[in-house]
Each structure stands twice: as C-alpha cells, then as structure tokens.
C-alpha cells in the first residue's frame, strides 16, 4: 500500500502546484498550457505505442480533426461563445472517435513497421488534404472566434480546461490500465498471435484503445485551436514532423509502457524544447533532429525504464518484469 499512498501525495502535490501556477507565474500560462497538451500527447500515444506495441506516427490526425471540427461548429452553429465551444468539443471528440473506429478496423490489422508507415502516411495525407479543402479555409487556415471575457481571461480559461483534460486523461488511463483492458492490450503487445489464440478479440481491443486515444486527442485539439486562435493545416493541426514525432519521442524519453513515464518525458522534453527555442533561434529544429537521434540511439529505454533497471525494488509489484530465477520452483 505504501507506493500507492506516495503516488497519491505526489499527484496531490503536483495538482496543487498546477492549480496555483497561473497566479505564481502568470507570464508562462500559455507555455504551461502547452505542457499539459504535451502530457496528453505522450499519454495517449503510449496507450498504443507503449502498452499495446503499435507505434503510431498518425495520432496527430485526431488532434487535427478535433481542432477543425470544433472550429467549424463555432463558425457555423450560430451559438454564443461558450455553448458553441462545448458543443464543438463534443463534436470534436465524437468525430475523432468515429474516425478512429473506421481507420482502426482497417489499419490496426497491419503489424509493426507497416502500421507505423501507414499512420505516417495518414498524418501527412490529412495535412495535405486539409490544406486543399476550401470549406475549412484550405492553405490559409481558420481563425477561431474571439474570447468574450476580459484580456488575459482566455489564457487562464484554456489553462484550466487543458489541465482538467490532462488530469482526466491520466485518471482514465490509470483506471483502464489497472483492469482487464490493460491486461488485454499488454497481452497484444507481448504476443498478439498468442493473445488471439487465447480467445481475446484483439481487433476489438485495439480499436477501442485507439478510440480512447482519439477521444482525448480530439478534445485537446478543440481546446488548442481556440488557445492559439489560428489553425494552420500543416503546422498546427496536422503537424506530423513536430507534434506527431514529439509524442513518440516524449513517451520513449520518459519510458514507454509506464503510466508516469510519458508524463515525465513530456515535462523534460517540453522544457528542453522551450530552451532550444529561446537560445538556439533558427537552429532549434536542427537541434531537435539531433535530440531525436540521441534519444532513440542512446536512451531507448527511457527515464523510468532506466530507473526500473537500476532500482527494481522501488517499483514494487506493479512493474515486476524481471525474468524468473533460474532455479524455478515456487
């Protein structure tokens, strides 16, 4: 029970800090809001990539679809700001889930690198498609409606909205991973053929997992579109080379297949990336490419993976993946 209490204290402490942050450091509200976005990215990527072994480069599609869906509802529904926003978010989530269900039934039958490449193609196809479609502004993008409250209220509102989303994502995923669903997707990661032979409806579980990811990504997309205020098809909504790769990287950096790993990885990565922007202006993308290489080549186990190897006893029964001792018996 001790690790559980500790984790509860940690969660409580972090939450208090997060709630107080807009008063403590008001100038950094947008940056910290993006930290929440990054955490959601990493967590939702890890549902497939870490827990289920399906490495997706295309999760950013759901983010972009959510963003556009919400913006279109806000533009065309003719409602007040907040009703339109919440209706838009609902539509965004629904559309993202529907898309995940349709795409998942086809794409999730692909294995390994084929799934990775197919989703890579999917992400870029969506970006190119969005920048050709006039209904959603084509290449010139869309502008979301103006926030009605006082100046600076927008940042605070979306800060708390994204914080709420992050906490919800974390708690929902923690609940899911601790139950039958978590065991099923871990079984798929470890040996899909065997899992299927044991009677698991693997495709159903895989599609459900993608739908869970898509829900949160769609909601996040809707909120981020309004936080930024401008939706560019290639650089914001369907940003494959940035967000699409970062979510993979953050989960790997933190340690994939763990609950806290993606959170940790997102925090470390986000701070590093902001420092790059500040101190290496112009060369920040080159530095990011180098960072990707460094993480993938030299640190593929991630922070938590490394810590788990270093101090296995600290992780208790939750992540006991060590091989059975040679003498066996019980």
């Amino acid at each position, binding site marked *: 029970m001790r690790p559980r209490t500790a984790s509860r204290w940690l969660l409580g402490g972090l939450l208090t800090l997060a709630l107080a942050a807009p008063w403590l450091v008001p100038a950094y509200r947008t940056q910290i809001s993006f930290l929440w976005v990054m955490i959601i990215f990493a967590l939702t990527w890890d549902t497939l990539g870490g827990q289920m072994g399906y*490495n997706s480069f295309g999760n950013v599609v759901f983010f972009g679809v959510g963003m556009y869906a919400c913006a279109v509802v806000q533009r065309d529904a003719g409602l007040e700001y907040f009703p339109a926003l919440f209706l838009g978010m609902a539509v965004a989530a629904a559309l993202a889930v529907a898309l995940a269900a349709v795409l998942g039934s086809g794409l999730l039958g692909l294995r390994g690198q084929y799934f990775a490449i197919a989703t890579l193609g999917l992400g870029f*196809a969506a970006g190119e498609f969005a920048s050709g479609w006039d209904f959603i502004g084509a290449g010139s993008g869309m502008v979301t409606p103006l926030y009605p409250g006082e100046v600076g209220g927008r940042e605070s509102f979306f800060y708390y909205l994204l914080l709420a989303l992050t906490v919800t994502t974390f708690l929902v995923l923690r609940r899911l991973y601790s139950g039958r669903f978590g065991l099923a997707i871990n079984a798929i990661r470890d040996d899909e053929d065997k899992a299927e032979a044991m009677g698991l409806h693997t495709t159903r579980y895989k599609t459900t997992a993608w739908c869970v990811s898509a829900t949160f990504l769609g909601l996040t997309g809707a909120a981020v579109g309004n936080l930024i205020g401008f939706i560019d098809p290639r650089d914001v909504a369907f940003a494959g080379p940035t967000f699409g*790769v970062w979510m993979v990287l953050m989960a790997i950096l933190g340690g994939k297949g763990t609950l806290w790993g993606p959170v940790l990885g997102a925090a470390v990565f986000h701070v590093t990336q902001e420092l790059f922007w500040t101190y290496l202006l112009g060369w920040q993308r080159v530095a990011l490419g180098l960072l990707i290489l460094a993480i*993938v080549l030299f640190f593929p186990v991630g922070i938590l993976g490394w810590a788990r190897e270093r101090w296995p006893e600290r992780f208790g029964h939750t992540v006991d993946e060590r091989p059975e001792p040679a003498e066996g018996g019980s």
Partner: protein
Amino acid sequence: MSNLQLLFDAPILCVQLLVDGILIGAIFALAAYGMALVWGVMNVVTICQGEFVMLGGYTAYFLYKAGVHPLFGVPIAAALLFAFGWALYRAVIFRVVDGDLFISILATFGLSILLQQLANQLFGADVRTAESGFRTLFFFDGMVTVSVVKIVAFVAALVVGVALLVFLKRSRMGQAIRATAQNARAARIMGVDTTRVYAATFGLNAALCGAAGALVAMTWLIHPYLGLPYTVRSFMIVILAGLGNVAVVLAAGMGLGAAENFAGFLLGAEYQAAFVFALLVAILLWRRFWLGRTRRYLK
C-alpha cells in the same frame, strides 16, 4: 472533376500524362531500389531516403553553378552521396541494424528531420533547378510535348539501374552483399566482413538516391523539404514490388509516376501530395485484406 471531361474530349492528353509519368517513374524507381536493398540486406527501413535525393539534387545544383553540366553532376552526386552514406552508417546506422525495426524507422526519421533542417539553414528555402539546356520535342502537332531532359534523365536512370545490377551480380562486393542478404550469419562464418557489407550497402543506397536527386534537380525543382514524398513513394514501390526484382521495381515506379500524374491532373495539383500519401495507406490496406483472406499478415 471537370478535367475528366477534358480527358475524354482530348484523349491525346492521356498520352502526355502517361509519358510524363513513366519518365518520372524511373527516377522514383532508383530511390525505391535503394530502399529495397537496405531493407533486404540490413533489415532497416530508411525514412531519410528523400533527404538523400534532396542532397543529391543540391550537389548537382552547386556543380551546375560552378559550371559543370548537370548530366556530369549525376555520377559526382552519386559518388559524394556514397561517401556520405558510408559515413552515416559508421556514425549512426550501425546502432540500429539487427534491432527493433521501429527504432530504425524513428532514428532515420530523426536523421531526415536533421538533414532537411540543416539544408534549410545552409542552402535556404528557395526552390532551385539546374538548367540543362536541352530542347523540347513536339509530337502530334504540338499536343504532346516531351522535353529531351526528361528522356535523358530516364535513360540515365536506366543506366544507373543496369550498372547496379551488374555490380551486384559480378563484383566481389556485390556477391558479398547478396550473400549477406540471404543469411548474414552464414556469410559471416564464410569470412564475409558484414560490417563492410552493411556500410557499402547503405552507401550504395545513398548513391542511388543521390543520382536520382541529381536527375530531379535537372528535370524538375529541388528545395529542402522535398524529401518525404520521395520516401513515401519508395516505400510504396517496395511494398508493391517486393525486395528483390529490379524489373518489377522499375515497372511499379513507372506505374506510380503515371498514376500520380493522372491524379494530379484530375484532382488538381493541390491534392497531388495528398494523393501520394493516401495511396500509400490504400496500398497497405489492400495488401492487408489480400493477405488476410489466406489468414496471413504483412511481416
């Protein structure tokens, strides 16, 4: 879709699109064959294929600026890229051979971002081309135009392909590469220095892409961000054609070139890139359902 009517009214346009597509297709096939080679021999999927094409293009462009005819830029670009590929293997790629395929995809994706951003910083984001000074031929009363440079590029691509085949069949290193592809462990036991073979294979891949890039610079345009569509095309061609057969790779490349040209014409140029990416997803799905009927899956 109004362009569809146009195609029926003037069927000669089909000939134009087809010829253009087939001529581009040979260049796609070069890069694709490089990818197939690395995949087959080293079990590494290279996502930085398009960036090698881009670097080859810039080599030809800068040689052109220095007064070398772009056609002579092709072998020079290939030679330079060979050295670059070799060095890259020694520095980075050797760490991902025999590993998880996803790690190799991610690592080469990182390389691709790195190379394109470096090119953007060093060469600028402008669109460039290496002027070759060839004429344009007219057929059917000027209804079909074919610039000689495209034909030259097509022939050059074929020559490079044949040279590669002869190299793989006849030379000592070529035989070692084929042996390693069949069974790396057995090759090692028989005294093949597989590390050198891997480095040479990766260098050859880069050289093929470099040659393709020089041809692209001569025939079309180059800019730092042209890479990804070439990677995706290579991947599509490899999936369709398999890892071994050069003739099938060439045919798939030409088919893809033609399909892309038709799609660009019918859907409008703004959707051409979207078509390439969507076609990749479609081909993968088609393969999956095709294999799924016999209860197999893509491995």
